[in-house]
């Protein structure tokens, strides 16, 4: 349960972050930017209008397929592998059933090579997931695809197993907000 609250908090943070032109901030502002625990920004999830398999409550349910949010990719590739199609279908259905919800897709890359090229590669991965969701009925304006490149690795070792975990697109839902 705690885990899912943290995820929702991350989703809300992500939503804040993707608003258009961030207001001018001074360096101190960045430094002061809160606390170690992102849970400090935890806010209640807006009440659901309805609850069904792909309703809002399912986002919080660890037994729901929607609790899985990561799509993994091959090296130097941005093709969505077949094994992830059911997961993408589930998230697409959620977006269709919950038109006020939005999604931020963060693409990631493994540590090998140029930071900026990896940023572009992560972007391609995020865009591939976005396109798959759109083909299944999600609206274009419901989804923003961005890239974290190789800057936020989930796994820090220089092994193929670890690199595979970092070649990833994360689908982050957020309650109705303007991008």
């Amino acid at each position, binding site marked *: 349960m705690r885990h899912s609250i943290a995820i929702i908090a991350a989703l809300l943070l*992500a939503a804040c972050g993707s608003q*258009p*032109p961030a207001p001018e901030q001074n*360096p101190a502002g960045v430094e002061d930017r809160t606390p170690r625990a992102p849970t400090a920004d935890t806010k209640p999830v807006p009440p659901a209008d309805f609850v069904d398999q792909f309703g809002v409550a399912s986002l919080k349910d660890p037994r729901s397929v929607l609790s899985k949010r990561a799509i993994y990719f091959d090296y130097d590739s941005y093709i969505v592998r077949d094994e992830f199609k059911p997961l993408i279908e589930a998230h697409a259905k959620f977006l269709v059933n919950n038109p006020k919800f939005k999604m931020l897709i963060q693409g990631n890359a493994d540590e*090998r090579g*140029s930071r900026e090229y990896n940023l572009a590669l992560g972007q391609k991965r995020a865009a591939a997931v976005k396109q798959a969701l759109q083909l299944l009925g999600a609206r274009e304006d419901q989804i923003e*695809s961005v890239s974290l490149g190789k800057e936020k690795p989930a796994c820090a070792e220089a092994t193929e197993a670890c690199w595979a975990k970092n070649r990833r697109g994360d689908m982050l839902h957020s309650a109705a907000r303007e991008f």
Partner: protein
Amino acid sequence: MRLPYAKILLPLALFIAATAAHAQLAIEITGAGANRLPVAVADFAGERIVSQALTSVVRADLERSGLFNLVDATGQVVGDSVDYADWKTRGADALVAGNVTPAADGRYDSRFRLLDVHKQAQLGNQGYTHTTSQLRATAHRIADFIYEKLIGEPGIFSTRIAYVVKSTGRYELQIADADGSGAQAALASREPIISPSWSPDGSKLAYVSFEAKKPVVYVHDLASGRRHVAANFKGSNSAPAWSPDGKKLAVVLTKDGGSQLYLVNADGSGVTRVSASSGIDTEPRFSPDGQAIYFTSDRGGSPQIYRMPAAGGEAQRMTFEGSYNVTPRPSPDGKSLAYISRNGGRFQLTLMDLATKQTQVLTDSAKDESPSFAPNGRMIIYATEVGGRGVLAAVSADGRVKQKLSIQAADVREPSWGPFVK
């Protein structure tokens, strides 16, 4: 009454000093030029009146360049009459002699002569008036003067470098003197900072910050500490590169689909698209004359370097060896191109002569990234990894002179060498 304050302040001052020393970039020379010019820098008469020795900084600068062999002259002062025969015996081709005298307003006058030992003639002389806090800066200017007279090209001892320090959960964009001293943070964040790039006049840095959970391009004025968003469109915003006139930035945006090249005014206005491919176009860099843009693209199936007119138009492929050539950086004279190539799984700094298309791998490391030319084109600073830790390294364009710059217990990355100081 003052004692209690002193008791409190002294340990505090020591703590700050210790912290600063801890964050200092330590430079280690790991290779030098083949034919080093023997030069002796005698102590300046009267330099002991200022708190820190001027000549030790001058000697360290010249030594670090890898182009000079410093003949030991520490503790010796050369007056008006010079014993040329003696300096010749000691092996010096050039000799620097000077003096420091107090000026009326509490400042100091540092004057020096550069002498040709064999011709027994003066090659030049110069003087600077400075405060004690400007001592290091004065020493760098003296070293620049000596370097230019003896080597025939401008020195880079007065320039600065920007880089990113990553420690646990914290990223700092720092700026230090070219010798690693005087490091100061321009920005601290809990989210990554990448791709710092100096404006041509050295007053600003453009960079990418992930503080909004996505990459956004900022322009940061160093004197005021103020900054503004230069590009924050839907999707990712990255890879800023200044036009040589400092008016525009080439950036990579994804607002219209894939990663493509755009131009924006430095204030963030007037965005126009420059490239139009279906693949990835990224890492733009203007040629020194501003007429062309070098960039990385996977349009041919693998990431390679291309060049296109800055106003847009047909792109020409520049790299053909290997399946991964990225991060193009044209030299200040526009005659060569530094970039990173993958050779058998190793990512290495490579230099191409643009006239002959001859290439040379400059390093024997495996994780090189983000090369940046010194403004005189002599050295290239880049990021690499030693013992699992990010360090900066510099290598001369001929591959002979090598330096390593590291900070204890932190990763250093994303170096960018600043322009000449006017």
